[in-house]
């Protein structure tokens, strides 16, 4: 517990929200239960929150709540992949993926034009790595295969995607709940991405 904590009182003042709103958001699961940290102080029990996380979350809720209902917002923040689906064009419009990459993805995937979050994640990672020039199209296909084969894993665990290359031969792996990975000398790590972080980035763009 070395995070910066903020007391409920200070939070309400800083964010300019009322008790009613805070409790309502808690009730609608917009703020996770584990962020409510109880501590004893000289006035009795007080509730504290991890400062950065809660301020960011409140900021998001406040900017988003005009367009979305609280229930829709709750879906956005839930850690599970929800049943949100978007059209191909919508993805391009929301700046999640460029049209070149999505065409490449669809050529290989041959799926329909509706994207659920799993597919969004795949296409988003592809976009990231292809656009940065880190991987080639051929490697992109390999990447897609790995992600598709392990869809179940990605949903539940904290996953990291690693791409390495040695002597021009590249490979791609998924680290599940791993702390660190070490490679042979001369191996070049082309990319290392946390899928959770990617997920959050997508969510941020959807918001």
């Amino acid at each position, binding site marked *: 517990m070395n995070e910066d904590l903020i007391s*409920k*009182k200070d939070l309400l003042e800083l964010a300019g929200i*009322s*008790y*009613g*709103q*805070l*409790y*309502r958001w*808690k*009730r609608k699961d917009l703020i996770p239960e584990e962020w409510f940290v109880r501590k004893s102080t000289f*006035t*009795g*029990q007080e509730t504290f929150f991890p400062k950065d996380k809660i301020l960011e979350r409140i900021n998001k809720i406040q900017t988003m709540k005009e367009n979305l209902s609280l229930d829709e917002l709750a879906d956005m923040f839930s850690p599970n992949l929800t049943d949100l689906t978007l059209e191909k064009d919508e993805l391009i419009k929301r700046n999640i993926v460029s049209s070149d990459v999505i065409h490449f993805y669809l050529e290989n995937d041959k799926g329909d034009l509706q994207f659920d979050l799993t597919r969004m994640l795949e296409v988003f990672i592809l976009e990231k790595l292809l656009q940065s020039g880190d991987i080639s199209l051929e490697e992109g296909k390999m990447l897609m295969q790995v992600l598709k084969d392990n869809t179940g894993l990605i949903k539940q665990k904290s996953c990291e995607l690693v791409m390495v290359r040695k002597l021009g031969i590249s490979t791609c792996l998924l680290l599940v709940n791993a702390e660190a990975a070490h490679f042979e000398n001369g191996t070049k790590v082309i990319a290392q991405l946390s899928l959770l972080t990617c997920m959050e980035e997508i969510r941020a763009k959807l918001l």
Partner: protein
Amino acid sequence: MEPKNSGDLTINGFGASNGGQFTNVILNGKGTVNSDIECDNFESNGTGSVKGNLHSKTAKISGNGKITGNIESSMLSIEGRGKIENNAIVNRLKVSGNTSIGGNLKCEEMKVKGRITVGGNCETDLFKGECYFSIGGLLNADRVDVKLFGECSAQEIGGQTIVVRQKTSIMANLFKPFFQTFLETDLIEGDHIEIESTKAKIVRGNNIKIGPNCKIGLVEYSGTFTQDKSAIVDESRKI
């Protein structure tokens, strides 16, 4: 859940069933369902029990009903005595009589006349009652509007508007020496708070009105604060 083509389950008198999917489930008399049940309408009259989870659109328990698992229903009405040993997720809850929920209760609107016991947290948009209540965890509601009928308790109460009144009637005055009506809680937090007959360690909010028979440790307010003459407030601060 596709119970559309499934039939009805009716037990009249003394009987047991193994559960499953139905359109209507009616237990009259002493009916027992031995496992999970999914249905559109559930009705129990007499002594009905479900040894498992109940998932239905509407549920009505009259008499003495017991569900050993969770209940999920958009409408639940309990007249008489209901016991749910685990969590309850309900849109509208109506209680006349005595209800106990072992786990957490989550609903949108609850109206209680009588007595309700919740083991865990109670989260609802509207909590309206003329009742005894006892909540093991947090009572979290947009609007709490209760008339106290006996010894009520909750660990914490949080919400937007919290109004707690004492029931006043000739009967209540008559029984006053025997029954103490008050609410006991550690913490009340809300934007607008009006309380009577309440014992609390801390009350925090914008506009706070402390009515008669209150005993409060600390009041913190940012807007207005009024206090009845007979109320005891150890300390009050404007923040």
